[in-house]
C-alpha cells in the first residue's frame, strides 16, 4: 500500500477504521518510517490537545459552587400580591384616567391604537378588524411567528421574511385610497379653487390650505396654515400651526405655537408651547391641551382638559373644565356648564362675572416634598409602585433570563452602557420623528416612540437587578434574578425620593440611560453574534 494520508492516519488512531483497513495501516506503519512519523505526530497532537483542554487552569466560580434551585422563594407570594395590587393601582391611578381623558379628546378606546398604527392612509381596509383583542392577538401572532422562525432559520432569512411581510402589509392596502403626497422645498399650497379628493400628506417649508381637502391632512412643515376646509382630521407637526378655516374631524397638533380661530367639528388635542383658541373658534368636541401658556376665548362644546403653566379661559365650555398646572384665570365671559376643577399650587383667579355651574373645586398641591414622608399613604404608594415595577420587569426576567442576565452584566460596564444609553435617549426620539416624515415612517416612528417609554421603564429593572446583585451576590437562575430585582428596585425607588430637584432629574436620566444602554449593548451583541471580549 502507498503512504497513509492524514485523515486515514487520524481515523486509525481514533479507532474509526474497519478492522481490515486498520490492520493494513498498522502493517504499513511498521515498515514505513515516514508514515510512522506521521502517526506519532498526530498522536502527540492529540495528547497535547487533551492536556491543554483538561488542564484545570481556573477554579470553579463561587457562583457555581452549589446547584441552582428553581424553587420559588418564600417571599414570592407576597411579591406577587403586591405586584398585582401595584398593577391595579397603576391602572386605576394612571392608565384609567388617561384613557378617560384621551377618550374625551376623541381618542376613546381603540381610537388611539387606530390612530397610531392603522388610521394612516395605508390602513384604510383594516378598520373593521379593530378590537383590542384582535390587535393583541395580531401582535402575539407576529411575535410568535417571528420566534418560531428564529428557531427554524437563520436570522437573516427571518429578518428578510419579516421585512417582506411588513413591506407587503404596508404596500398592499392602499389601492385607490392612497393619499396624495406633496413635497416642496418652499410652500405647498392647496389653492382656493382646488379640491384634493383624498388624504393629503404635505411636507415643506410651509403648508397652506386655502382650498378643500376631502380627507385627512397630515402636515410636517415650519408653518401650517389652514384657511380652507379639511373634511377629515388634521395631524400637524410644525413650528406654527394656524387653523382659521373649517375642519370636519379632529385637530391633533404638535407645535411650538398653535392657534385655532376657525371651526373644528370634533376634538382638539395639542401639545405646544403656546396655545390660543381665539374668539372665533368653535370646537364641536373637547379640548385637551398641554402647553406653557394659552388662552381659550371661543367655544368648546364638551370637556376641556388643560395641563399648563398659565392659562386664561374667557369663553364657553360645554362640559367639565379641568386644569392641572400653576396659574388659571377665568375671565368675565367664561361659561362652564359642567364642573370646574383646579389642581395646582395657588388659588385660581376667577372673575366675578364668570358663569360656573358650580363653584370651582380647588386642590392645592403641597409644595414641600419632604412632608410626604410622614404619611403612611406615601409608603403604601411606594410599595404599590414597587409592585408594579416588579411585575413589569418580572415578565422579561422569566421569559428571557439569559438576555436579562447579560444586560445586568453589561450594566456593570458603566462607561459604554451610560454612553450608549445617553445617545439612545437623545437620538431615538429624533430618529422616530424623522421617520414620521416619510410615508411608511408614520407608523414606524410612532411605534418606536411607544416602545421608548417601555424600554425606559425596563431600564429601571435592569439597573435594579444590577444593584440587587451587588447587595446579594450574583445569581444565575430566574428566581435568583427576581430576588435581586426585588431588592434592587427598593434602592432605585428610594433614591428616586431624594427631595432635591436637580438630583431627581439627573438621577432619572442616569438610571434610564444606564439601563437602556445595557439593554442596547446586549441587543447589539446578540445581533452581531459576538460575545463580549
Amino acid at each position, binding site marked *: 500500500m502507498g*503512504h497513509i*494520508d*492524514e*485523515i486515514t492516519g*487520524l481515523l*486509525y488512531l*481514533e*479507532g*474509526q*477504521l*474497519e*478492522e481490515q483497513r*486498520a490492520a493494513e*495501516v*498498522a502493517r504499513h*506503519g*511498521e515498515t514505513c*518510517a*515516514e508514515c*510512522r*512519523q*506521521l*502517526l*506519532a*505526530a*498526530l498522536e*502527540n*497532537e*492529540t*495528547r*497535547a*490537545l*487533551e*492536556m*491543554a*483542554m*483538561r*488542564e*484545570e*487552569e*481556573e*477554579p*470553579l*466560580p463561587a457562583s*457555581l459552587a452549589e*446547584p*441552582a434551585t*428553581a424553587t420559588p422563594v418564600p417571599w414570592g407570594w407576597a411579591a406577587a400580591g403586591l405586584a398585582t395590587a401595584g398593577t391595579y393601582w397603576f391602572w386605576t391611578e394612571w392608565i384609567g384616567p388617561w384613557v378617560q381623558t384621551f377618550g374625551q379628546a376623541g381618542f376613546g378606546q381603540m381610537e388611539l391604537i387606530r390612530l397610531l398604527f392603522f388610521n394612516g392612509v395605508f390602513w384604510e381596509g383594516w378598520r373593521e378588524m379593530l378590537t383590542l383583542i384582535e390587535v393583541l392577538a395580531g401582535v402575539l401572532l407576529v411575535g410568535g411567528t417571528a420566534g418560531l422562525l428564529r428557531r427554524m432559520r437563520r*436570522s437573516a432569512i427571518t429578518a428578510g421574511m419579516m421585512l417582506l411581510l411588513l413591506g407587503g402589509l404596508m404596500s398592499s392596502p392602499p389601492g385607490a385610497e392612497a393619499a396624495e403626497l406633496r413635497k416642496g422645498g418652499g410652500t405647498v399650497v392647496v389653492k382656493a379653487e382646488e379640491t384634493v379628493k383624498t388624504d393629503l400628506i404635505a411636507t415643506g417649508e410651509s403648508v397652506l390650505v386655502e382650498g378643500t381637502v376631502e380627507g385627512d391632512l397630515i402636515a410636517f412643515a415650519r408653518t401650517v396654515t389652514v384657511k380652507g376646509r379639511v373634511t377629515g382630521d388634521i395631524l400637524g407637526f410644525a413650528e406654527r400651526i394656524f387653523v382659521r378655516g373649517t375642519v370636519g374631524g379632529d385637530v391633533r397638533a404638535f407645535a411650538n405655537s398653535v392657534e385655532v380661530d376657525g371651526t373644528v367639528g370634533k376634538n382638539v388635542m395639542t401639545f405646544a408651547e403656546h396655545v390660543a383658541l381665539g374668539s372665533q373658534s368653535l370646537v364641536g368636541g373637547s379640548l385637551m391641551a398641554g402647553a406653557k401658556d394659552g388662552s381659550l376665548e371661543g367655544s368648546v362644546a364638551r370637556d376641556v382638559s388643560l395641563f399648563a403653566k398659565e392659562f386664561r379661559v374667557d369663553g364657553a365650555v360645554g362640559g367639565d373644565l379641568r386644569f392641572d398646572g400653576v396659574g388659571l384665570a377665568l375671565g368675565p365671559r367664561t361659561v362652564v356648564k359642567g364642573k370646574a376643577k383646579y389642581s395646582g399650587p395657588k388659588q385660581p383667579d376667577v372673575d366675578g362675572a364668570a358663569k360656573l355651574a358650580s363653584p370651582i373645586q380647588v386642590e392645592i398641591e403641597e409644595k414641600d416634598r419632604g412632608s410626604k414622608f410622614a404619611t403612611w399613604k406615601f409608603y403604601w404608594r411606594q410599595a404599590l409602585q414597587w409592585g408594579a415595577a416588579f411585575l413589569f420587569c418580572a415578565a422579561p426576567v422569566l421569559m428571557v433570563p*439569559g438576555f436579562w*442576565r*447579560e444586560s445586568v*452584566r453589561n450594566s456593570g460596564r458603566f462607561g459604554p452602557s451610560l454612553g450608549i444609553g445617553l445617545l439612545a435617549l437623545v437620538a431615538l426620539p429624533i430618529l422616530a420623528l424623522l421617520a414620521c416624515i416619510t410615508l411608511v415612517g408614520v407608523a414606524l416612528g410612532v411605534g418606536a416612540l411607544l416602545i421608548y417609554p417601555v424600554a425606559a421603564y425596563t431600564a429601571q429593572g435592569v439597573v435594579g437587578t444590577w444593584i440587587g446583585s451587588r447587595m446579594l451576590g450574583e445569581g*444565575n*437562575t430566574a428566581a435568583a434574578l427576581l430576588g435581586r430585582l426585588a431588592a434592587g428596585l427598593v434602592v432605585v425607588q428610594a433614591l428616586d425620593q431624594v427631595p432635591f430637584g436637580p438630583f431627581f432629574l439627573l438621577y432619572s436620566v442616569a438610571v434610564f440611560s444606564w439601563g437602556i444602554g445595557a439593554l442596547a449593548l446586549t441587543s447589539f451583541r*446578540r*445581533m452581531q*453574534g459576538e*460575545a463580549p*471580549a
Partner: protein
Amino acid sequence: MASGWKSGEVRGGDAQEPGRPGGPRRPEKMSTAGIADAIARARAGDAEAWGELYRAHAAAIFRFCRRVLKTREDAEDATTDIFIKVKEKMGQFDAARPFSAWLYKVAANHCWDSLRRRKVRQDLETEDVESVPLEHPAPGQLEKLIRERSAGEVRAALETLPSRARMALTMRYYAEMEYEEIAEALGLRKGFVGVVLLRARHQLREALGRREG
C-alpha cells in the same frame, strides 16, 4: 523523530472503544456505584443527592463550556442552565450508560444551540465539510509545532477557532464523546466527523503558526 506511536497501541473497528493511551479519564470524583446511588436518590427528589452529583460534575461541565463558549460569563450561565436541564430530564437518563457521557451530551447540545442562537456565523451551516484538503503534512514540522507549545498557548489558539471547530475538538478531546454523539450534536453524518476534526486541527495549527509569526 517522534517515538510516541507503536503499531499495537491502536485498535481497529468501529464498535470498539477508541484507544487513547495514557489520556486522562473523564473527570468523575465519585465512584460508579456512588453515582448510581446518587442518581437513584436524586430521581426520588433527594436534594442532597442532587447536590452530590452536581458537585462531582460541575467543574468538568464548566470547563467544557469554557472551552466552547467565548466568555467566562457565558460559560457560567451555560453551566447553570445545563444542570437545570439535567435535573429536569433525570427521568430520561438511561442508567446503563455512564452519567458523565449523558451530561456532556446535554452540555454539547445546549452550547451548540446557544452558539447557533447567537448567530455565530463563522461556519455553522455554510461550510462544506467535504472540501477539506487532505494533503500529507510534513510530520517533523507538525511535531515541532505541537512540542514547543504550552497548554495555555494551545488553549489561546483554540479560542480563535470557528465555533464548530472548537465544539468538535472539545467534544472529542475533552469530553471523549463518540463520533456518533458528535455527529448527532452537530447535525452531521458520522462519516464527516473525522473530516471536521482534521480540519479543526489544521485550523489550530494555522492559529499556532500565526502566534509564532
